[in-house]
C-alpha cells in the first residue's frame, strides 16, 4: 500500500479537470457554435455556458428551464460533464424545457 511521508494513506483525489470544447446549438439558433467547458462543470453550468452566447443575443430569452440533450438523452442537471460521458468535439443541444 502506498503511504505518504508521514505514514498516512493519501486522500483519494479526482482527476484534474480538463477542457472539453463542444459543438453546441441553443434552441432555435441558426448555427452551431464552439463552446468550451470543463470536465467538472455541471450540466446546468454547461447549459449556461452555451446560452450566454445566444439567449437574448439571437434567440429571445424566456423564463423557462434549460435542458441539455446529448446523444439522444436528456441529461440530469447535477451530473458533471465527465460523468455524462461528454467528450471533446461532441455535440450538445440546449433547449428550453417547455
Amino acid at each position, binding site marked *: 500500500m502506498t503511504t505518504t511521508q508521514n505514514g498516512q494513506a493519501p486522500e483519494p483525489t479526482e482527476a484534474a479537470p480538463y477542457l472539453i470544447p463542444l*459543438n453546441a446549438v441553443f434552441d*432555435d439558433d441558426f*448555427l452551431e*457554435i464552439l463552446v468550451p467547458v470543463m470536465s467538472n462543470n455541471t450540466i446546468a453550468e454547461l447549459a449556461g455556458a452555451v446560452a450566454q452566447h445566444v439567449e*437574448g443575443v*439571437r*434567440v*429571445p430569452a424566456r423564463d423557462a428551464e434549460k435542458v441539455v440533450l446529448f446523444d439522444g438523452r436528456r441529461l440530469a442537471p447535477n451530473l458533471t460533464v465527465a460523468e455524462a460521458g461528454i467528450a471533446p*468535439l461532441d455535440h450538445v443541444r440546449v433547449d428550453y424545457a417547455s
Partner: protein
Amino acid sequence: MTMLKREDWQDLARDVEWDYSYVDHEAVYPDWQSGTGKVPREAWAKWEESYKVTYPEYVANQNGKETSAYAVKAAMQRSKAFENLDEGWKSSTKMHFGGVTLVEFMGQIGELRMARFGLNGGWRNMAVFGALDESRHTQITMITGHEFVARDPQYDWTQKAFHTNDWAAIALRSLFDGMIAAPNVVDLAIQLPLMFETGFTNLQFVALAADALGAGDINFANMISSIQTDEARHAQQGGPTLEILMEHDPVRAQWIVDKYFWLSARAFSALTGPGMDYYAPVGERKQSYREFMEEWIIDQFGRTLRDYGLKKPWYWDDFMAGLDVWHHSLHLGFWFWRPTVWWNPVAGVGRDERAWLQEKYPNWETIYGPKWDTIIANINSGQVEKTLPATLPWLCNTCHLPNCNPTFGRDGRWRVRNWPVSYNGVTYHFCSNVCRQIWWEDRDGLNNPTVVERFLAGEIQPMDVPGILAWMGITPDVAGDDGHQYAWAAEYLPAQPAAAAGA
C-alpha cells in the same frame, strides 16, 4: 506573298500531336496529372471545341476589349461616382474583389496545367488562351479594386484576402484548391470550366453586373462584363471533356459533377446571396437570389444534365430547400461576425426590406424574424456589444462555411441539425448531410483544417477574439462594422408621443 486561308492551316496548327521516341507517353502525361483513368488514350483524339480561335484573332479581340474596358475606367475615374455609392453596394464589391481576384490567378494556374497535361492538342491550345484570359482577369480586377485603396483600406483586401487566414478566405481557398490546384486535368476541366464557369459565373457576373448598373457603379459593371466575354469561350473546355468521360467512365463523371455543383452552390450562396437579397437597395432589386438561381443556374444545369446523359444529383431536394435558407443564414452570420470580414455588412432588415424578404421567401419571418428582432432590441437599448461575437461559429469540414442550415423537421420546427462523423478517433461536424457525404468519399485526400480545428490545436494565440482577429490578419481599420452604422434599427423604436416629439 499569298496568305494561306484560315481553314487551310488552322486544324493542323491547333491539333499538333506527335509520338515520343525517347520517353514513353506515361512520362509525358502521367496519370496523376493528366487523369485519363479508364479512358483509352486514343479516345481523346475526338476532343473538339467549337470556337477554334487563332492567335491573331485572339490578340485583336482581346485588344479591343481591353481598350474599351480601360477607356470606361479612365472616364469613371474623373467622375464623382464612387462618393455616391451606397455602403451596401460597396460591400458587395469588396466581397467580390477579395473573394475573386486571386481566384482568377488560380484559374490561370489551372489553365496552364491543362495547357501542359491536356490529352488533346486542340484542348492544350484552348487552355493557353484560357491562361491568357485569366491573367487579364486578375489584372483588371486587381487594378479596379486598387484604385479605391487610398479612400478605403478595406479595398486593400482585393490583393490581401487570399494571403490571410481569414475564415472566408480559407473557405474559398479550400474550394479552389480542390477544384483547380489539386486535381488531374480531366477532373479539372469538368470542375472549373464546366461546373464553375459555365454553371455558376453567370451568377456573379451577370447578376452582379445588373446590380452594379442599378447602384450606379458603371466601372464595376464594365469590368465584370468584359471578363464574362472571355469565360464564355474558355469555359468550352469542359463539355468535350465530360462527353468523353461519360462514354468511358460515367460513374466518375457523375461524381465530379455532383460534387462541384454542390460545392459551387455553397460558395455562391455566401459570395452572391447576401449582395443580391440584402446589400442591394430593395427598390433596385430585379430578382431575388432564389429567382436568379432558378432562371440562370438551375435551368442551365438541367440542360447540362440532359445534354450529357447525367442523372439529377442525389441531393437535389436538399439543394432546392437550401435556396430558401443558406444565404439568409450566411448573411446573418456575416453580419453578426462582422469584425471578422473585410467589408461592412449591411443588415438589410428594415421594415420594407423584411416585407420583400417575406414575399420572396415565405418562411423568412418564421426562421429569421425572431433572431433579427432580438438583435434590433439590443441595438435600440444601447447594447450593441450584445450583437458582437464572443466565440467562433462551428465551420463545416467540407465547405468551411458555418454549420448554419436550419431544416424543417418532423418536430415541426426550423432547426439546425447536427451532421457528425467519427473517423480515426476524431469527430467532425458538417453543415449538411451532403457535405458529410462528400467528405467521407474524399476523406483520405483532404488535409485542410477548419479555423475551429486550428484554434483548438493552439495555432491561434491568445485564444480570444482579439487573438483570432490578429491571426486572420484583420486590423482595426479593416474590421467590418454595420454598413449603415445601425441607423436602420431606429425605425423599430416605439413611436414617441407627439408632444415629446415636437418638444
